[in-house]
Structure formats: C-alpha cells, structure tokens
C-alpha cells in the first residue's frame, strides 16, 4: 500500500520534468518527421543506384550494356575537366533558350491576339489547329531539306514544338477570364490597355504558365532528337559520338545531363509561378 502511495507521489512530484522530457521528445519526433519527408523522395533513386552498382560489381551487367555508376561519374568528371562537357552544355542550353524564346514568344503573341479579338480567331485559329496536329518530329526531313543541318534547323524544330502549348494555353487563358470581373472593371471606367493590364492578362496568367511549363518539357525532347540527327556540337552530338566509340558511360552522362537540365528548367518555371501567382490560394 505504502509503495503505491510513494510511487504515485514521485510520479506527481516529477511531473514538470516529465513534461519537459515530453516536449523534447515531441520536438525530436517532429524533426524526424521533417527529415523523413525530405529524404523519402530520394530513397528509391539511391536504392536503385546502389543496386545498379552492386549488379555491375558482381558482374551481372556488362560494362558495354550499362557501366557502373562510378564509371559514369568518372566519365562526367573527366569530360568536365577537359572542358568538353561545358561546351556541349552551353551550346545545347543556348539552343533550348533561343528556341523557346522564339516559339514561346510567338505563341504568346498569337494567343493574345486570337484570344482578344474574335476576328483574329476566325482568321487564324482554324489554320493553327490544323498545323498543330502535325507532329513536330514529322517535319524533320522537310526541315533538313530547308535549313540543311546547321543551327537554324534545330531552332526551327524547337520553336515549332513549344509554339503550340503556349499558344493554346494563352488563348484559353484569355477566353476563360471571369466575365464578371471584366464587367466590373468596365463599370469602374477601365478600358483598353489598363483593362488588359489589370484584369485580362493577370486573369490569363495561371493558364499561360501551365503552357510554359508544358513547353519547357517539350524543349528538351525536341532538342534531343534534333541534336542526335544532325549536329556538330551539343549534348545530343556528344552522346551520338560516344555511341560510335562504344563509350556507354559518356552516353549515360549525356542522358543524365538532359534529365538535370530539364529538372532545372522546371524549377525555374515553378519559381516564376510561385512569384507571379502569389495571390492565388493554391500557391500560398
């Protein structure tokens, strides 16, 4: 009996200390949860790389089919040291950026035009929709006939590919701006450019940015194809060249570079989205 009382007493007496310990445990649990959320997405890739390395070491994979990750890293390192890597990345990135700027810019302009003016839509939209259904890659033979295999052929392919997603989403964005807001703004005396700047354009922006992100994904797809077909430089050229010499590790470096650059472009687009759409409940 007395033992029970003492036990209860001590439990009672040590309550503040116990609470503090509880708090510390809580905090530790929370920190662990945060780290788990951060690390979990990387678990699968890391496990795959480990399995790959193991398979290569044990000899299940021939180095011609798939060299070990370590060899790929070494190849990347030596390419970076010789400066070859940077030349190719610079050229590819330049092609992607200028092609995206040309095609996306044109898509944005035409989308704004057809979205805003009914007559422009009547005049242009049918033709654009027809061209849209031609896969950009089907144009390759024609593009080579027109531009040869120099820079302009790659730019043309990339721009025509990114034109359509940007055009379509801009057009759709302009058309789906809340009519009530436009009516309100008009009744508050807004018209012309101020109406466009304050109401129509920001209203269309979420949709335009969806088009931009979609187009950014396409840029790399088109660029890979364009560069593997005909090029004297660029990541695609590097990988094709490596294939000739059976340098599978360099081919893998090229593929990983595309993945990395694509991810980088997507992060940039996401940052833009986060800034421009900071008013949007979905981004707060």
């Amino acid at each position, binding site marked *: 009996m007395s033992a029970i009382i003492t036990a209860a007493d001590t439990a009672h007496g040590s309550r503040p200390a116990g609470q503090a310990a509880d708090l510390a445990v809580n905090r530790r649990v929370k920190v662990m949860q945060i780290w788990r959320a951060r690390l979990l997405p990387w678990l699968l890739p890391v496990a795959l790389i480990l399995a790959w390395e193991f398979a290569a070491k044990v000899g299940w994979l021939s180095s011609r089919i798939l060299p070990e990750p370590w060899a790929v890293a070494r190849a990347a390192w030596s390419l970076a040291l010789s400066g070859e890597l940077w030349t190719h990345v610079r050229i590819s990135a330049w092609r992607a950026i200028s092609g995206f700027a040309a095609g996306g810019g044109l898509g944005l302009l035409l989308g704004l035009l057809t979205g805003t003016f009914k007559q422009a839509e009547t005049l242009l939209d049918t033709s654009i929709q027809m061209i849209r259904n031609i896969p950009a890659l089907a144009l390759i033979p024609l593009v080579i006939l027109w531009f040869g295999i120099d820079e302009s052929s790659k730019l043309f392919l990339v721009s025509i590919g990114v034109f359509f997603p940007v055009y379509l989403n801009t057009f*759709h964005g302009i058309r*789906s701006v809340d009519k*009530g807001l436009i009516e*309100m*703004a008009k*009744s*508050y005396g807004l018209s012309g450019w101020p109406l466009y700047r304050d109401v129509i354009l*920001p209203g269309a922006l979420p949709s335009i940015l969806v088009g931009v992100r979609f187009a950014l994904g396409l840029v790399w797809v088109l660029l890979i194809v364009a560069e593997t077909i005909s090029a004297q430089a660029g990541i695609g050229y590097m990988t094709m060249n490596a294939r000739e010499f059976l340098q599978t590790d360099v081919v893998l470096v090229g593929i990983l570079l595309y993945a990395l650059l694509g991810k980088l472009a997507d992060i940039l687009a996401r940052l833009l989205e986060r800034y421009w759409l*900071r*008013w949007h409940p979905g981004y707060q």
Partner: protein
Amino acid sequence: MQIDPVENAEVNAAVQLNAGRGIGIRVRSVSKSYAGREVLKTLDVEIAAGEFVAIVGRSGCGKSTLLRLIAGLEQPGNGNIGFGARDDKPEIRIMFQDSRLLPWKRVLNNVGLGLPRASLASIRALTQVGLEDRASEWPAVLSGGQRQRVALARALVHDPELLLLDEPLGALDALTRIEMQQLIESLWKERGFTAVLVTHDVQEAIALADRVLLIEDGEITLDERISLPRPRARGNLAFAQLEERILARVLKHPAPQLDSALGDISLQRTVSQVGWAI
C-alpha cells in the same frame, strides 16, 4: 395597391430638399426582352435624388435586369433612362452579389481600381469600412463579409452619385448581413448619394429603404413609402406589421413560370459565355 402619383411627387420633393450628392433617376417606358421573352414591360419609375429605394420581388421577376439597365451594363429595348438634369454620364457605382475583387491585386489596390493615383483616398475608404489594417492582404484570405466591405469601399472611393446594390448581402451570414446593412445606411446618410438596392429580403428592404418597389412579371405592382424613423429597430411593432404586409403581398403572386422551352435566362447567358469552349 394603387400608386398615387400626386402623393408620390410631394414626398419626392420633400426628399429632394435634403439631398446631398445624390442624383435623380427617370426610367421612362423602359422594356427589355431576352431571346423573345419579355423581362421588363414598359416600366416607368422616378427616383428622387438622395433617395434610398429597395426593389423586391421573386427571383426571375426582372429586378436585377432593371438595375443592370440603370447601371448601363445593358441597353433597354425601348424607352430611356435619364439622370438628374445633366446630360453627361453621372458617377454610378455598382456592388454585385459576389464581391468581384481582383484576386491578383492587394486589398488597397482593389479599392483604388480606376483611380489615377490610389493611396490616400483608398486608405480613407478602407478606414470607413473598418478594414484599414487589411490593406496589404490578398482578397483570397478575407472572409465573405470582409470582401463585400472592400467592394463597398471600392465603390465609395469614387464618391458616387448613385450606388446600385445587386443583392450584395445575399451570400452573407445573418449577423454579418446586419452589420453590413448598418454600414451601408450610415455611409448613405453621410454621403447623401442615391441608392438602389435589389434584394429578395423584405426585412432588409424595410430596414434600409425610403421606398420599397415590388416588381412582378416585369411590372411595378407596389410602391410603398417607408416612413419609419431611422435607425429602424427590427423588433418594432410598426416594422413587423409592415414587413408582414409586404411579404404577404409578395407571396400572393405565384412564382414566375419560366418558359421551359427557353430555360432560365441566367443559364442561357452562362452557356453563351463558355460557348467558345464547346
């Protein structure tokens, strides 16, 4: 109920005496039809400068259409609408059922919409509706009542001669609604603009308006002057009796049968708005 034009003219004159910035409205044999269905049938109404008029009626009776015609958002099929003695366009502002704030502009910039240089007047208007501390928020984080208060500030910043209210409190909860009614009434008293309120809430109409108009099938069938002293207590016997009487009058008329072949007008408009996508 018969409308007595002589008596009305006299009261109008009395109201006109203490008018501030308000402007009178003359609606002369105005009609309007959508897709062959007549929504308003040769409607005549005079609203005195500085008067607070409430328009009640069942949904689909044409009360919102009348308001949109006065606002100039739509053109009448026949007849005309005149304002005061002047020929130029008066300062008219409208408050909609949804606040229609621009979600990509902060509260202060929403209030200053259409002003060449916003800040000071906008802050003053925000202070009047009691939201000056939310000036730098995005509209998305405000509650429904706060959004309507911002919309009211946006309308007031232009110092309107005529304020049109298209069921602006319809979507608010009962307590917020009473607060907003008091706010609108006090601002109306202070500024002296003419106010036209469309509502389906008879109590709200009696609480706020000098005059209650009932529209049925596109015609004004009741023009009741409310002479209760302000501020009007809802528990008051005279208030309750008046409410009872007008509500009974509204309910006497059967709900308008929308032409089923045509469907709901508002629905048709929505479909035409998204028609490009189909």
